């Protein structure tokens, strides 16, 4: 075997040489119209095909050479003026050859002319040929001989509308002929595996697959016969082909032929014969890749369904889905050791099928998922990554089809399938779901659905036992959680009651998310709740008395609880902001004590939790800003809060920050509303205090660095002065502004001050503003007139 290919080349070359040699003499005989010699040399030539030494591939080469020569011989045979023998006699004459293989090749060749001559019914000749070919039992030689028979008879079948159709010759005869040839070829093909020594099985399998198309071609011929209508296909062709497929008990053949059937015959035939076709599947050998076969079938049918809406009723009529579903169930049941990926692939195909064919039948989808769950529950742990991919495909299919998560949510088996995913995949799937919601902007509006949805995406919502936390990629995690946060905003119902339920459910789920997740989810949740509040306000009156649970108070309670959960994180800055938001909402609802409570909470946080000076600055400005807008408070509460706020401002770490906070506080006493508080005195107090701090900052800077501090602080304060001056605060006088401007100028000119271009520009534009106001005239102009620049 060492130089097997070399030897083969040699044998092939010898065979070809033999064919050429004899073909030469045959041509001479043909040219001289010598029938005897022609028969003799053609038989000798064909004897070269008797070799057993060649692999199918090489044998094919040899066969093709002989085939070409036979075509010339056929032309000679056809012309009886050349040899003077009737076709009937010729048909006998060629059978005198002693060796069977040349004899049968010649017989087929003459047979084709015999049919053409119409001296005998085509069916008789065909039957004779296909029967006589039984004499060659050697697989390769037999396959090629029969393939030759198929080849030469193709255009001579008594098909409907063919010239060979007659009273005696019906399309049935054509079908019988092809079927018989097919059966015999398949037998030979299957038998190949038992030939020769063992141990080279692999090589033989390869050789066999090289020959598969010879067998499959018969099915192709069958599909090309006009007369094979649905009826005949159903009654004759398919049962007989399947019988052969099942009985041959060979996995290679079964797989190939099933696929072949599916590919060559029209879709509508498949649809009408589903039961038969599917019935064969469980009968195949356990090693046959039935799933691919079924997948292909379903793919074809789905494409067929997709091709035109007209065919859909057919699908319904034959109950295609339930048949397929049953078949898949049986196959999975029968093939116990089918890997999970196989089973799931089948389900994916079935799902695709039903989605295309019966998009309205959600129960089908659910049924498929249910079957899949059943299968998966028998597998302890799904570890195969390919299987996982298939499950994802399974779950994604309905999302893609319906473009609407709502549909998926109604599928009771959907979450159960997800349970079988590993953690990573589960998250991936959850993300897919969320993205689908986002993409389609679908709003989930009932509490039940929300519940289901959160069940689905629980991989994102909380840590799952056994998850390896270290593995988490920070960025991925953020993205996931941001998605969840975005998702929360998609949960919305106009009905406040339902909305409250939704919020409660979301809260229930998100609260278990742990410190890492809460910062992402809580704010969404809070704002969702605040939106509900505004909703309530919008339709107040009719709601209040109706349902006790629906008071704003309740919601605020809920909010408090939600925000409190952040203390576990801890995330005081966020909590503070949320408290302030709530306070503002409470303000909107005109509930003073609640607003006060929120501020208390905010202040508590500020005092106890917010230690970082920068955070403090931010926080205090937020507090001031919020407080300024509050109008719900009574004098006392307001005083307490403003006092606190001012106090905090003054205790900030850096002077500059103090200064800015303090002058911001001035706004707390002057709300530019009609009925807003307008306490000019305390405004001035604040501003003066700010000035003092600025001064102190200036001095400290001088001491510390020998250079002037920020003049900009003064400019900023000047701006505040001008603001209040404009707003008509009587305590702010033009002279005070005048004084401040001078002070600034002095500071600017002092040697110790570093030139500061930003401050310069700021001052310049401030002054330009004053100038502008003066020139503008009117009431404001007069007011500013007294300020000298």
């Amino acid at each position, binding site marked *: 075997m060492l130089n097997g290919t070399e030897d083969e080349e040699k044998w092939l070359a010898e065979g070809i040489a033999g064919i050429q040699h004899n073909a030469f003499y045959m041509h001479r005989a043909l040219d001289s119209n010598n029938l005897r010699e022609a028969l003799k040399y053609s038989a000798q030539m064909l004897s070269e095909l*008797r070799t057993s030494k060649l692999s199918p591939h090489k044998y094919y080469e040899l066969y093709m050479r002989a085939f070409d020569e036979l075509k010339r011989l056929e032309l000679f045979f056809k012309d009886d003026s050349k040899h003077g023998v009737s076709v009937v006699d010729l048909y*006998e004459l060629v*059978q*005198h050859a*002693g*060796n*069977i*293989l040349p*004899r049968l090749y010649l017989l087929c060749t003459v047979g084709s002319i015999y049919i053409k001559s119409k001296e005998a019914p085509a069916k008789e000749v065909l039957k004779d040929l296909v*029967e*006589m070919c*039984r*004499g*060659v*039992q*050697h*697989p390769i*030689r*037999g396959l090629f001989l029969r393939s030759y028979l198929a080849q030469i008879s193709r255009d001579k079948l008594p098909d409907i509308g063919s010239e060979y159709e007659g009273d005696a010759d019906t399309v049935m005869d054509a079908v019988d002929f092809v079927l018989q040839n097919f059966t015999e070829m398949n*037998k030979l093909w299957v*038998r190949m595996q038992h*030939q020769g020594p063992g141990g080279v099985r692999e090589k033989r399998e390869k050789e066999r697959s090289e020959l598969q198309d010879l067998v499959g071609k018969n099915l192709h011929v069958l599909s090309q016969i006009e007369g094979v209508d649905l009826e005949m296909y159903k009654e004759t062709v398919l049962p007989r082909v399947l019988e052969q497929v099942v009985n041959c008990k060979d996995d290679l053949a079964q797989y190939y032929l099933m696929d072949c059937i599916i590919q060559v015959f029209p879709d509508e035939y498949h649809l009408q014969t589903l039961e038969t076709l599917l019935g064969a599947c469980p009968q195949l050998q356990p090693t046959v890749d039935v799933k691919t076969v079924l997948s292909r079938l379903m793919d074809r049918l789905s494409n067929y369904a997709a091709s035109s809406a007209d065919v859909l009723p057919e699908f319904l009529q034959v109950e295609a889905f339930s048949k397929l579903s049953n078949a898949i169930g049986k196959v999975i049941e029968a093939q116990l050791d089918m890997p999970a990926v196989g089973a799931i692939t089948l389900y994916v195909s079935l799902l695709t099928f039903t989605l295309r064919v019966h998009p309205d039948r959600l129960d089908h989808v659910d049924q498929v998922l249910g079957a899949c769950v059943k299968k998966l529950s028998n597998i302890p742990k799904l570890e195969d990554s390919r299987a996982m991919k298939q499950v994802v495909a399974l779950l994604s299919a309905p999302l893609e089809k319906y473009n609407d998560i709502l549909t998926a949510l109604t599928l009771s088996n959907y979450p159960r399938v997800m349970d079988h995913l590993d953690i990573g995949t589960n998250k991936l799937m959850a993300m897919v779901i969320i993205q689908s919601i986002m993409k389609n902007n679908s709003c989930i509006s009932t509490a039940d659905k929300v519940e289901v949805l959160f069940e689905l995406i629980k991989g994102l919502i909380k840590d799952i036992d056994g998850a390896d936390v270290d593995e988490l990629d920070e960025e991925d995690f953020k993205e996931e959680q941001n998605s969840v946060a975005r998702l929360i905003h998609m949960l919305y119902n106009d009905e406040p009651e339902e909305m409250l339920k939704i919020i409660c459910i979301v809260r229930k789920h998100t609260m278990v998310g742990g410190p890492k997740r809460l910062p992402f989810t809580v704010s969404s949740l809070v704002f969702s709740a605040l939106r509900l509040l505004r909703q309530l306000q919008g339709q107040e009156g009719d709601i209040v008395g109706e349902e006790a649970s629906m008071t704003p108070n309740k919601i605020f309670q809920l909010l408090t609880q939600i925000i409190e959960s952040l203390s576990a994180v801890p995330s005081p800055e966020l909590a503070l902001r949320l408290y302030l938001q709530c306070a503002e909402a409470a303000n909107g609802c005109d509930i003073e004590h609640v607003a006060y409570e929120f501020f208390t909470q905010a202040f508590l946080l500020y005092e106890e939790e917010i230690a970082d000076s920068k955070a403090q600055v931010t926080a205090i400005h937020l507090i001031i800003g919020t407080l300024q807008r509050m109008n719900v408070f009574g004098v006392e509460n307001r005083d307490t809060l403003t006092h606190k706020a001012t106090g905090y401002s003054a205790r900030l770490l850096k002077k500059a920050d103090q200064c800015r906070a303090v002058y911001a506080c001035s706004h707390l006493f002057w709300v530019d509303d009609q009925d807003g508080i307008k306490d000019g005195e305390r405004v001035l107090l604040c501003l003066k205090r700010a000035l003092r701090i600025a001064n102190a900052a200036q001095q400290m800077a001088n001491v510390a660095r020998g250079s002037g501090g920020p003049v900009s602080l003064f400019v900023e304060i000047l701006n505040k002065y001008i603001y209040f001056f404009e707003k008509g605060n009587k305590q702010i006088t033009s002279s005070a502004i005048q004084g401040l401007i001078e002070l600034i100028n002095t500071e600017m000119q002092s040697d110790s001050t570093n030139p500061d271009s930003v401050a310069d520009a700021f001052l310049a534009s401030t002054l330009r503003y004053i100038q502008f106001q003066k020139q503008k005239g009117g009431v404001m102009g007069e007011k500013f007139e007294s300020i000298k620049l």
Partner: protein
Amino acid sequence: MNYLVGAFKPPCNIFISFTDGRSRKQVPLKKENGKTVMVALFQSQENIVGEVVIEPIHGKKVEHNGVKIELLGQIELYFDRGNFYDFTSLVRELDVPGELYERKTYPFEFSTVEMPYESYNGVNVRLRYILKVTISRNYVSNIVEYQDFVVRNYTPPPSINNSIKMEVGIEDCLHIEFEYSKSKYHLKDVVIGKIYFLLVRIKLKNMELEIRRQESTGSGPNTYVETETLAKFELMDGAPVRGESIPIRLFLSPYELTPTYRNINNKFSVKYYLNLVLVDEEDRRYFKQQEITMYRNLEAS
């Protein structure tokens, strides 16, 4: 004897011809010297009519004790060379003793001659029919001339013609059932049949059908049996599996067959057999031989 005639150069030429010679069918006959000549064909009960022409060589006279023509049916056994057994011998006197000066024509006729046996040219035996013209002479050897002719007898199709069907095998190895549609065939017949493989445990390579001719001559301890294989016809290529059935269709016309001859004049018999041979991959041969009866059918020949 003949060359003596030639040496002395016979004083006359003798021509034997049949009256219907032109229209009568001619068939090839292989002569002893290996040459094939075309001769007239007769069957039993026919009238053999013709004429003998004696033409003395110019200027010579032929003195004779009488001229006769004989019709002889002879069996010649090669191992018993020189011995002819005449199973038929008919004589017609053509002329009384006298002298012949010029060409003379003698018509002759053998009416409804009984010729029960066919002409046959075998390995060890020959059966032939001849017309023998003898001019008897005193003191010198007789002048003799021979004319061969061939006899073929036609038999009507047999009224009973059973098929041959048989199941044979080697236990646990090979089990087949074969069937030939008939047991009696005419010479241009076709052997139709089938072989069913009931059990195949050996690796077969091919299968062929042989036509064998068995010629037995002599009798008792001096019986000579000669078997020839006239045809080897491949029926199957490759190894069949259980349940396979292989068709047989063997045209007999290409082969030079004769009818079956049974105990012809107690001298010889010719029998035909179909021998089914299966060859395995180690070239071992398994066979089963079946006698068939051949007959000559008028229509087919």
